[in-house]
């Protein structure tokens, strides 16, 4: 990695280490003098914020694991013991619980930033794809974490989601049995989920490392979406962005702390304070809020797809839903090849900007649909129909609007350079 030219350090200890393992040279190159576009706005804080949240989750998670018992008869009680009898246990648990939500908030904003400013475009495709991998791993981690306290939503959420895999032709049933470690969600399921929930954050760390590595090869994008050309366009990362990131991070932590101390259960579901009971199904089974848009897409397909005028079903409603949900994330992987417009930033692409903002509103609306019962109505219209339309827009945005705009959107004139773009 940093086995190129080495710097000289005045401090003899640092120099001694650095001449053997050039870690200080590397840190200085990547985080000290690293040339960074000078025109970042606060959207560029969220990578650092996500990194902070990852560390927070791992530290609080390891402390929780010291007092948690992964057994169906003790899991709920052990979490309550953490809340009542472990010193500051309530604080650690609330940090971890709300941390998952705030991790997702940070990552959603981080992803929106990438969309808005075209950060996924050439030459940052791999950087973007690694980000989507992190997002997938995070979703799996959070899903399994939510099962651990073994409350009603833990149990029923796990039952509903793991059952989805049975829709996959031929191998579905075997996959489900493998996930369950038996014939229903039970003790073996809880045990393997705990083992995986402990493992996956470290896989996330590994992918984050690759993500940051790729970032330091291409350098950051910026709100103008044009590459830096001269020294006038960039600033050394330290102190300019270290200080700006610290400020942004503190504001974020302040909001996060507000939830931890004053609304710790607001983002959760009250049913998860009822111990899991396989014989009592909750009235509404809803996942955590960050899954709701995807949950809505899962439930949007309420009809079988078959050969017209016959009763041959090719894709059952259930499989259709599963494909739609996973497809919505699969699309993100190929995004760099769906949007091939040469201009990156939405600032200079008014049409793209409009469709993207509609996309965001649509995504939030999907979240609302996901939060409601399957048979909810809006006046005379079934909400699931609106959910289907919103799913249509989600897919249409990627598969039709972006390729079409890539061909036909003219876009505005780009500024000649970053430092000149700051002036207007």
């Amino acid at each position: 990695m940093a086995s190129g030219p080495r710097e000289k350090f005045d401090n003899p200890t640092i120099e001694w280490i650095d001449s053997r393992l050039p870690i200080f040279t590397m840190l200085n190159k990547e985080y000290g003098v690293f040339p960074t576009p000078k025109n970042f706005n606060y959207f560029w804080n969220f990578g650092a914020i996500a990194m902070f949240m990852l560390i927070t989750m791992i530290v609080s998670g390891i402390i929780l694991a010291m007092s948690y018992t992964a057994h169906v008869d003790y899991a709920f009680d052990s979490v309550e013991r953490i809340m009542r009898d472990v010193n500051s246990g309530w604080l650690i648990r609330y940090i971890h619980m709300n941390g998952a939500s705030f991790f997702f908030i940070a990552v959603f904003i981080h992803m929106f930033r990438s969309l808005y400013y075209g950060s996924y475009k050439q030459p940052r495709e791999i950087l973007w794809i690694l980000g989507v991998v992190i997002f997938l791993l995070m979703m799996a981690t959070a899903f399994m974490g939510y099962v651990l306290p073994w409350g009603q939503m833990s149990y029923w959420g796990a039952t509903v989601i793991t059952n989805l895999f049975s829709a996959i032709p031929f191998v579905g049933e075997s996959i489900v049995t493998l996930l369950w470690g038996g014939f229903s969600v039970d003790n073996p399921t809880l045990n393997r989920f705990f083992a995986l929930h402990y493992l996956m954050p470290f896989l996330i760390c590994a992918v984050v490392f690759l993500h940051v590595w790729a970032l330091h090869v291409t350098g950051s994008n910026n709100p103008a979406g044009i590459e830096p050309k001269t020294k006038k366009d960039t600033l050394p990362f330290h102190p300019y962005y270290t200080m700006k990131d610290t400020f942004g991070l503190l504001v974020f932590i302040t909001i996060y702390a507000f939830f931890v101390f004053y609304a710790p259960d607001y983002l959760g579901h009250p049913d998860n304070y009822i111990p899991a009971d396989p014989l009592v199904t909750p009235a509404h089974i809803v996942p955590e809020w960050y899954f709701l848009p995807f949950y809505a897409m899962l439930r949007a397909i309420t009809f079988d797809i078959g050969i017209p005028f016959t009763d041959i079903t090719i894709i059952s409603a259930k499989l259709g839903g599963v494909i739609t949900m996973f497809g919505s994330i699969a699309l993100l992987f190929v995004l760099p090849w769906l949007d091939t417009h040469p201009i990156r930033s939405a600032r200079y692409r008014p049409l793209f900007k409009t469709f993207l903002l509609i996309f965001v509103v649509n995504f939030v609306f999907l979240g609302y649909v996901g939060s409601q019962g399957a048979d909810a109505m809006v006046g005379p219209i079934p909400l699931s129909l609106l959910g289907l339309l919103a799913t249509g827009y989600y897919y249409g945005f990627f598969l039709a609007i972006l390729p079409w705009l890539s061909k036909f959107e003219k876009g505005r004139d780009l500024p000649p350079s970053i430092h000149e773009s700051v002036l207007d």
Partner: protein
Amino acid sequence: MKKTILSLMALGLIIGFAPSSFAAGDAPHAPHQHWHFDGITGQFDKAAMQRGLKVYREVCSACHSLKRVAYRNLVDLGYTEDQVKNIAVEYTVTDGPNEDGEMFDRPARPSDKFVSPYPNDKAAKALNNGALPPDLSLITKARHNGPNYLYAILTGYGEPEHGVELMEGQHWNKYMPGHVIAMAAPLSDGIVAYEDGTPETVSQYSKDVTNFLVWAADPYLETRKRTGIAVLIFLIVFSGVMYGVKKKIWKDIH
């Protein structure tokens, strides 16, 4: 600035639709009561909690367990250790086996959890027309809008709406999802004697027992809120300082 507002809006949207996932059945929303523990500086009302404990012990504990709370925790209500000991010894727990391999009964100690009224869930159901009285240790967290809901349930009994047929052991309650509850109205005026001159009404009992059960579900509420103020003040001041530092460093850039 525009972008900051935009990102705050996005955050607001994300957080804003979270509560909609709690959409309850067809029961009306439980009206908001004034609680001593509400708000950023909220603290427990110890006198109300002591009265609430009395209501729990004399009424609710006939059917509902409180198995996550230990007698020693009652010092939070303002009792001395001796008073707690005196409360505990009024209960009997089965302990053992002793040297001879026999189980034996002994008076409860402060370290014991509240003794449950029934040996198991099946017994509880058998004696309650097949309905299970839930453990109350977490009840205010296990229902949306918990404290207000609990108060509303306890005061929400009435005559069934026209056309509603109640079966044996069912009762009409305005705030229960579906309006049918298997618990008969547990409280009536004067059922528990108060020594401090507080009115002995259903509404007062309900308030008091809610204060007690909120503490049972969330014993660190006071500590949490007190710590929260210190943490938030620190973070806000630190953010302010960092804003100044950032401004100073960036002064010549824009």
